[in-house]
């Protein structure tokens, strides 16, 4: 698990940097796919089997294809992805956020349970989502309505007038 974590961490950070810094936008999208795959692997090292599968299905399968589709439809590949006027401020904001988070994370005394959860998570996840007493049934329904609204909204936005 240790070796897997370090390899996946390096791959995900390197491909995220490639997404941000590559000028060729289509290559950036392909590195985004690699980043999503590495994050699915990180879920696997965290014993979250259902989420690792969902990550591959939703992000690698759906969102990445959607993004590549959008790149193809908006033909600005020859122009690349230049940085804007606020590059320095953006870098400062990102660096300040990173330093603050690292200080907070290393300075906190986390109460952790070190032994890994051994059971498959799918059934306990379903219990947590759909149980009657303390489940997330109402948020689940709201999220379903949100997805429907997003699909209808996307169709309405790109429809030829």
């Amino acid at each position: 698990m240790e070796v897997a974590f370090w390899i996946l961490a390096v791959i995900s950070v390197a491909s995220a940097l490639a997404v941000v810094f590559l000028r060729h936008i289509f290559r950036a999208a392909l590195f985004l796919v690699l980043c999503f795959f590495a994050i699915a692997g990180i879920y696997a090292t965290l014993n979250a089997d259902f989420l690792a599968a969902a990550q591959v299905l939703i992000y690698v399968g759906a969102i990445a294809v959607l993004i590549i589709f959008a790149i193809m439809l908006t033909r600005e590949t020859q122009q690349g992805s230049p940085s804007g006027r606020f590059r320095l401020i953006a870098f400062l904001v990102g660096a300040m956020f990173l330093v603050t988070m690292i200080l907070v994370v290393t300075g906190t005394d986390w109460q952790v349970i070190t032994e890994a959860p051994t059971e498959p998570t799918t059934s306990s996840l379903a219990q947590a989502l759909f149980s009657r007493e303390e489940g997330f049934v109402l948020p689940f329904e709201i999220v379903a309505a949100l997805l429907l609204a997003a699909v209808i909204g996307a169709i309405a936005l790109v429809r030829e007038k």
Partner: protein
Amino acid sequence: MTVGLEHFLILSAILFSIGLYGALAKRNAVVILMSIEIMLNAVNIAMVAFWRYGHLITGQVFAIFIMVVAAAEAAVGLAIIISIYRSRETVDVEKIDLMKW
């Protein structure tokens, strides 16, 4: 040195700040959306790490909700970008200023 909760949280913070830089600094709207996806994934890593080291299933439930909202956001965001590209022939956010007062 064993890998613990801190490692996952710091990895998540690094990915989040890379995405933050991309979302603030880039001019191509599609790249900005890609950076936002990286940020959402970084938050998901933190959620799942808290589940792994605290055994509270709510972390994973939240991660699923974040995934769904990210999918909805990507669909609507890319639809907006495509419809702007149709009318303006550009996806450069410094040239798209219809909402600027």
